[in-house]
């Protein structure tokens, strides 16, 4: 029993040591003017990621709900990883084909890890 408890303690400690420190970040997206081309329309977003860290690695999930020309409604999640500094804005473009309609979009922080010193 003692050995089992010791083993459990060791496992827990090594797990805690291996887990990287996390941070918090907020994401704000603003729709910009479409980038229209012959074959598709680029939906452009200015995406600002706010964090109190001077440098952080942030994963942002972008979820788009799109209605295709045949009526199928597709929800797609794409993950982007960025090394961010406070007050930086990034450009994100999501291209939709002719006949498709973008119904909804969402940007969400999936992970924030401070940069290694």
């Amino acid at each position: 029993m003692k050995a089992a408890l010791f083993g459990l303690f060791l496992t827990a400690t090594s797990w805690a040591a291996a887990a990287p420190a996390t941070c918090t970040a907020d994401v704000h997206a603003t729709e910009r003017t479409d980038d229209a081309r012959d074959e598709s329309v680029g939906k452009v977003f200015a995406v600002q990621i706010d964090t109190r860290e001077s440098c952080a690695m942030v994963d942002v999930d972008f979820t788009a709900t799109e209605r295709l020309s045949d009526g199928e409604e597709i929800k797609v999640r794409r993950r982007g990883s960025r090394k961010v500094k406070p007050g930086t804005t990034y450009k994100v473009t999501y291209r939709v084909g002719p006949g498709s309609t973008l119904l909804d979009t969402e940007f969400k922080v999936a992970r924030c890890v401070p940069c290694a010193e």
Partner: protein
Amino acid sequence: MKAMLLSLLIAGPAWAALPGPTDTHAMRAELQKQRQDIVAGVLDLTDDEALAFWPSYRDYRVEMARLGDRTVKLIDEFVASSDKLTDAQAGRMVDEHLAIQAERVAVRQRHVKVFRKILPATKLARFVQIENKLDATIDQELAMAIPLAMEPAGK
């Protein structure tokens, strides 16, 4: 036998009725709307699989939707002229139908190569199966509504 005949009789008027362009578009949209939900329910993807699979699935379905648009255009054209179809029109429509079928297979083959790198073999097989079942359902609905080609009156 009696039941089969009865169902054929019930299906008869629907089969004989000419669908308008709006009917075809609405029918297709209604059948396609829940497609991703059905595929998602059958595949039961892990988070990593989902992140890789759905963007590729979307690219695949965009291409298939374009081919579906061509099919609907062909049906609209056929319905508008099915009782006065010229030989030239009929021949062109057959060629377009076969070209769409061939492209459907080509698009599916190209995208399955991508899906093979993302999904385990059994999930890929399940995906191909559910795609076939959904397409078969849509094709059946359309087949029930599309009349056979007629020779022009007086010919």
